[in-house]
């Protein structure tokens, strides 16, 4: 069904593209937010990815690859937004919108969320993308490598490095908090 919509959208049917995009935009936003940790940047990335998807859809050879291709566009848009934020911050003094970050009881109970936010923020956008694709979407390294456009080994080393850094942060948190987290599962 979706393959047919993709084929129609590739031939210029905006209604077909609208249906495809509405089905996926929540997931795209959720991924972008988790990579960028900023509501506005995530919205920019989603918008850019979907517009690029519409523009370049006639070049997609295999409609069955639409979702993987869309994720790839989104990840590129996130890289772009990540670089852009750094550039804008240098020139117009953007204040990080940490208060926008939604909290959950789970995350708050697990570990010092500020410490995790800081550790995650210190990773490059490329590293964050791999962590989110793996831990949020549940993708394997082969799929991640294909989406971000790097060799399997690079995807694995990015994930390893990122998780090492996050583990260090967690382990530095208070033992009591960690114990609570462990028993809460």
């Amino acid at each position, binding site marked *: 069904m979706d393959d047919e919509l993709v084929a129609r959208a590739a031939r210029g049917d905006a209604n077909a593209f609208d249906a495809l*995009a509405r089905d996926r935009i929540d997931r795209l936003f959720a991924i972008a937010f988790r990579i960028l940790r900023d509501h506005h940047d995530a919205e920019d990335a989603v918008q850019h990815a979907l517009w690029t998807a519409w523009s370049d859809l006639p070049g997609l050879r295999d409609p069955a690859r639409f979702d993987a291709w869309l994720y790839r566009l989104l990840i590129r848009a996130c890289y772009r937004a990540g670089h852009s934020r750094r550039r804008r911050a240098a020139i*117009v003094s953007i204040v990080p919108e940490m208060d926008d970050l*939604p909290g959950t009881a789970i995350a708050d109970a697990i570990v010092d969320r500020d410490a995790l936010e800081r550790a995650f923020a210190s990773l490059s956008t490329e590293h964050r993308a791999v962590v989110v694709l793996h831990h949020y979407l549940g993708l394997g390294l082969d799929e991640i490598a294909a989406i971000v456009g790097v060799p399997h080994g690079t995807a694995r080393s990015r994930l390893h490095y990122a998780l090492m850094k996050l583990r260090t942060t967690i382990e530095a948190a208070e033992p009591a908090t960690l114990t609570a987290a462990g028993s809460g599962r």
Partner: protein
Amino acid sequence: MNENQRTDDIVRAWIRSGPEQASFDLVERTLRPVPLMRQRRSWRIALERWGRPATAGAAAVAVIAVILVGIGSIARFGGVGGQPVSVPNFSLTLADGPGAGVYTADTTSTLNQCSHAADGSWRYLYVGGDPSVNLDLVIGPRAGQPDGSSNVALELDAGPGYLRFDPSDIRGGDPSGPAGQSTAHVEVRPSASTTTFVIHATTLDDRAGDGAPPYQVDLTATCRN
């Protein structure tokens, strides 16, 4: 349970927390303009996929596109000389690299927007044209001051080319190329109704491959005051 597994579970739970829904505004803002946006033809995308061999062809098509846009503009505004010019607009020349060519604002663009922030900075966003141009220009509030000529940053996709330059104070940290290879200068020309920014820069094109020299970028952008 080993220690790594436990901490990975914590990371996973933290990653999974957060918003799951895009706002209604984002959905509408993103999808409403789609029927008005043009799709790139598949042969062009295929050519770009092949990379640099397409450069000459793309440049030739860019020149033809500029001529056609020019003819279209003349037809739209009824001739040259003293006729109204739509604002915002830009004219961009990339001397070399994968995206070499001349690009101008397309009146049927998806996004062509200039904003002037309270801190005095300007931002010009543009998406449109064929070959497609995606431009994000930031002019800092100090750009008009005597020592502020490098208070400018740009990120640009133009056809198959992609380049960017940062404000001078973070230019050395650009991971895509050797430090300090980008230069950028902006001149601010205010008038009663518009402000024009004339930018001359040299910077690396990320799609040109290792060892490619910095390219000359000449961009003139005009915003309504």
